[in-house]
């Protein structure tokens, strides 16, 4: 156990002194991930009901999921809405972040705070508001409606990611480009965008995930043939407890984890 005596940092603190910290950190990490990972063994159960730990193993609930046209259609809908949200929220959020960052206007900070309020307001308020507003214009149960509502949630994330990236960028490069003969638009696309592209991709992936994982707004404004995967899962949980949900959850955890790891990987490349 020699490592316990060694110093843990550039100070005199040893790993032994820090042992309690490691234990606390480990407990916190377990508490954070157990609820997520507990569904994985449950999804491989042979039982009719959700049980942990499973008494017999099988992949029948995966067959159930992949064999059900209802689940498959919901999955396709979720991916469609996720991709569309990504395509709308990323350019909108990037343009807003750039404009507010460059303007230096007194009101820019206030406008920024206003635009990111959807991150602070309880999502259920946005859901109720969207439900009534969409009811008047016939956007409930449509893909367009849900994409618009999800864009409200995703655009602030894009703005925060892009603004953070612009902070480390030397805007003089755009001035130089303009003095050398590039219009503002050309300077942005030729000089600025290539240098923040990894942040833009990260923001796009986060937009997709925001929509893909979202359930509250989906419950209110999606339905019928355009109901999302999360809305179906929520309904299924309410009506009958079925390990198919665990199988779907496992797949969603996998998709989300891969995308998040991708954003981390891309984020590191920019540095």
């Amino acid at each position, binding site marked *: 156990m020699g490592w316990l005596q060694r110093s843990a940092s550039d100070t005199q603190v040893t790993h032994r002194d820090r042992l309690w910290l490691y234990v606390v950190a480990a407990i916190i990490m377990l508490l954070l991930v157990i609820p997520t990972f507990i569904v994985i063994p449950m999804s491989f159960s042979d039982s009719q009901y959700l049980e942990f730990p499973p008494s017999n193993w099988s992949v029948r609930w995966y067959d159930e999921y992949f064999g059900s046209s209802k689940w498959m259609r919901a999955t396709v809908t979720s991916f469609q809405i996720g991709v569309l949200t990504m395509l709308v929220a990323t350019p909108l959020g990037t343009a807003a972040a750039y404009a507010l960052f460059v303007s230096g206007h007194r009101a820019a900070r206030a406008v920024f705070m206003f635009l990111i309020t959807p991150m602070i307001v309880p999502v259920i308020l946005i859901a109720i508001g969207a439900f009534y507003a969409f009811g008047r214009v016939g956007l409930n149960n449509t893909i367009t409606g849900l994409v618009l509502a999800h864009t409200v949630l995703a655009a602030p994330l894009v703005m925060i990611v892009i603004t953070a990236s612009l902070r480390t960028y030397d805007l003089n490069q755009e001035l130089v480009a303009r003095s050398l003969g*590039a219009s*503002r638009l050309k300077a942005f696309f030729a000089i600025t965008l290539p240098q923040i592209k990894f942040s833009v991709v990260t923001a796009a992936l986060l937009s997709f995930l925001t929509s893909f994982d979202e359930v509250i707004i989906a419950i209110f404004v999606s339905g019928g043939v355009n109901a999302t995967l999360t809305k179906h899962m929520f309904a299924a949980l309410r009506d009958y407890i079925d390990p198919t949900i665990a199988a779907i959850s496992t797949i969603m955890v996998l998709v989300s984890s891969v995308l998040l790891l991708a954003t981390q990987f891309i984020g590191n490349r920019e540095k």
Partner: protein
Amino acid sequence: MTARQYFFRGALILANDSNQSAEASTALPIHIRDLTKRYGQMYALDSVDLEIKSGEFLTLLGPSGSGKTTLLMAIAGFNRPDAGSICFGDTEMILTPPHKRDVGMVFQSYALFPHMSVAENVAFPLQLRKVGAAECTERVAEALATVQLSEFGERGIDQLSGGQRQRVALARAFVFGPRILLMDEPLSALDKKLREHMQIELKHLHEKLGVTTVYVTHDQREALTMSDRIAVINHGRLAQVDTPHVIYNQPANAFVADFIGESTMLPLSGDSAGRLMFADQVVTTELPADAVADHLLVVRPERLFVVRDETLDPQKTIAFDGTVREFVFQGETAFALVAVDDRHELSVRFSTDSASSQNELRPGDKVSLGLHREDVITIPDNA
């Protein structure tokens, strides 16, 4: 027009072609009239009139916040003045956006594009002008040769030293043959030795290109070294515009005298005969235009000399008797403070030549300092 001719129209004269100067046909004068820019109640530029001659190297020199960068940015088109006119030649530019002004610009931070190679950086303005690939390659190569970076085209920006980055920024700014070159403290990020080396190089480059150059700096030595003329600017107004020699030897006012070089200023009093006096000495009988105003005598520390045994001709020399207060060795020169009366001290700078007798000065020594009459500078005291 062949590529070669086009290249010369671009004012890019290489070292081996330096006899074929293209100055007259390519450089443009800049006429600035009544230029005013306000930020709130603060005047960054206050009715500035400035004529920048074709092919001239003009330096805007001033302390930080004096308005020199505001003026440069107005010429580049990055800020919109509240009033006034900026003409390039006969063309009014005040409403022209920066990308249509055709000026090359070098920033303090260089602002090289890190996602492009050295050659791609330099090619950027050519590509915007739709220059063909072959000619583009040729001109990039010649520009890089001019700044002695021929071997560096394929390098990434992060593989360059500070001085090399500076040269890439320069090459990028002149490769497309602008008729005006603007530089905003381009050397301030370099260490002292490299900066002094680059000052000389920039001066040579300017001679080679013959392009009208406006250079911003707060470093008076840099301005004196490089400029054809210096525009000293303070509080948004021009304090004096002239050649380095005149700026240094005949400052127009106390600000210029104080800001450029070292100086001590002594108050002069007029006597009944209309002469300007310090204590009981006649400083000058050649009265300045506004003889009514109070005047100051500007003494440059290096123009003073220690008087030993020789007797001075009062027709040619003014003498100050005083007591040494401080004596400091600073390497190539030594510096002394000499009290000439109760309220006034003169700064004196000596060569540290081992043979010279000034090296023996000690605080408390009585000393007599001489100043040749041709080194006398008087300015009106507006304070």
